[in-house]
């Protein structure tokens, strides 16, 4: 009995530094943030508690529309990254001459510093000097310049595509690693049984990639949901707020307008939304795992 207790205490002792570390850098700031969200903290040296005022203000300021935009923006971006990443991984897995060069080229968007990549896209979207507008005019598709970031719809898709460009290499290489870890004998057995390429992909590759797809989709989802640099550099959330996501809105209020209390309330909402999203996601994963075991 004493031995068991001692072992448990030893385990707690081993865990303690990590728990303290997490408490200090995650839990405590989180508690502070929640506390701040109930205050009118701003530039003034003092502040007071305002109850749920900051939260009611959020929903009076069209936040519902921003939440919806954030979810759709995240959905499209993550979906494209998953689809392109899967296709890319399959292609990079094919034994072709010069495969190493293709693999290196695929990494380029990830190698280029993110801000530089975004500015480069900003110039490509420029109506007067941009490459895309120039090509469209040269091929006679448009009669004049098109400023992609000037309009709500094109601006929205331009930011999605830039996020996809930056995020896809990581997905591709993660999926490539997953594909390469699939035992060769499964394919050989299927080939002997006369299974075609599509069948092998559907019945071997895809099912074996599911854990990788699930893991990568949640990582990608969280980072895309919190994506700031791309939208901020390209559009500042405009025009007419049509590319403003929850993170951009939080930044504008908390840092732009120095309303730390209101900003904290918004960031709590970001955390809650992500939390709910992740909860559904893990329930889905559990359901899939249970189904697989059956």
């Amino acid at each position: 009995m004493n031995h068991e207790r001692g072992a448990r205490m030893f385990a707690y002792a081993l865990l303690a530094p990590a728990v303290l570390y997490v408490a200090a850098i995650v839990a405590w700031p989180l508690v502070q943030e929640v506390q701040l969200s109930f205050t009118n903290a701003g530039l003034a040296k003092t502040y007071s508690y305002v109850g749920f005022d900051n939260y009611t203000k959020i929903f009076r300021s069209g936040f519902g529309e921003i939440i919806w935009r954030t979810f759709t923006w995240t959905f499209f971006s993550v979906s494209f990254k998953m689809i392109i990443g899967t296709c890319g991984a399959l292609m990079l897995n094919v034994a072709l001459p010069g495969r190493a060069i293709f693999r290196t080229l695929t990494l380029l968007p990830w190698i280029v510093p993110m801000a530089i990549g975004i500015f480069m896209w900003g110039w490509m979207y420029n109506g007067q000097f941009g490459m895309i507008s120039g090509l469209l005019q040269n091929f006679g598709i448009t009669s004049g310049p098109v400023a992609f970031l000037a309009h709500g719809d094109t601006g929205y898709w331009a930011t999605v595509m830039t996020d996809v460009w930056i995020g896809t290499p990581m997905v591709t290489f993660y999926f490539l690693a997953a594909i390469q870890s699939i035992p060769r004998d499964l394919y050989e057995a299927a080939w002997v049984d006369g299974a075609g390429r599509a069948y092998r992909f559907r019945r071997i590759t895809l099912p074996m990639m599911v854990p990788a797809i699930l893991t990568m989709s949640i990582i990608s989802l969280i980072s895309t949901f919190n994506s700031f640099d791309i939208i901020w550099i390209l559009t500042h959330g405009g025009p007419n707020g049509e590319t403003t996501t929850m993170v951009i809105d939080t930044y504008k209020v908390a840092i732009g307008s120095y309303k730390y209390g209101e900003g904290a309330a918004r960031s709590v909402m970001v955390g809650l939304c992500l939390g709910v999203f992740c909860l559904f996601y893990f329930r889905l994963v559990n359901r899939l795992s249970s189904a697989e075991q059956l």
Partner: protein
Amino acid sequence: MTKASKIAFGLAAALLSTTSLALAEDTTITFIQCGDSVDPTYPPFISEWESKNPGFKVNIEPVGWDQCQDKVTTLAAAGNPPDLAYVGSRTLKQFASNDLIVPVPMSDADKAGYYPNIPDTVTFQGNQWGIPVAFSTKALYWNKDLFKAAGLDPEKPPLTWEEELADAKAIKEKTNIAGFGIVAKTFDNTMHQFMHWVYTNNGKVIDADGKIVLDSPENLEALTALKAMVPYAEEGPTAYEQNEVRAIFLDGKIGMIHASVGAVNKLKDAKFAWGVTNLPLGPHAKGPGTLLITDSLAIFKGTGHEEKATDLAKFLTNPDNQFKYEVSNGLTPLRPVPGVKDLVAKDPSWKPFLEGISFGGPEPLFLDYKGFQDVMINMVQSVVTGAAEPADALKKAAADLEQYK
């Protein structure tokens, strides 16, 4: 006294003297200056001030323009402000109302030394809260070659909004090149550019009593005139801030723009003939107008060096030093000092930038400057993109501004 004790005494005396010297040198005035490096005109001024103020040393910290304002504000909010900082005058009301800066009252003689309306850019509740240090006005640049190609008289720039619209229309229709450059990106100068329309039609955003007067006939005319320009402007104005519009103008792809004196230097190598004149006037204008944008030196509260920091700020911005700084940086002069006449005689393109001052107006001061800016940008963008009619957009913006005044 033994030799050893003599040495010990000597060492102690030397140590004491260096300590007291170090203590005296320790009084440092921290000065945050916006820019990538210390302005070259400042070091001699600083040396002169330090020699007149023994025991004080000035530490200038240059901070890039993009982060400068936020850094100063964050330091002040965190209770660790610099003694002195370069800030946009538009932020002074916010700083003052949060008790972060000290007033820097101007005497009547001080005020009279500036061009008219300049002291208003730093005045809130009858007090001055900063010392103007940089000043910018705008004028109309036009591309004479495009005027000629459109069948217009290249030597006759538009004097009124009506003429400006007609010229823009002619350029667009005859050359298929944008007649006018509209600035409407989600960026602060979208608000600035709209304020030029306001101040060339005797309009206002907020009156001396703090009442929002944005929804006025003068401003409705301004917003309507801007909307009328859209078909003859560059495609997608909401994608461009003023420097980007200026770049398109420099490329010969826009007929007219409203821009600061900085464009004169950039146009020196232009491949087309150009001119610069007063901003065209609206129907209610009483004379040439423009938005008067100033940046200021603000003195932060609670540093213990407020008095010395004020003295330093006044020294740096005295008429002689300030004019040298303006000439070095190509800024519009804040005061009609004797050197201004020579400046205009040497380069007459300065004239419209100075003439607009008389009927110009300040950046409106708000408790939440960014909130004000966002409301104005949304108003302009909604009209430019056709999402709202000018009257509705103006009414909505006026109502939204109430929370920020």
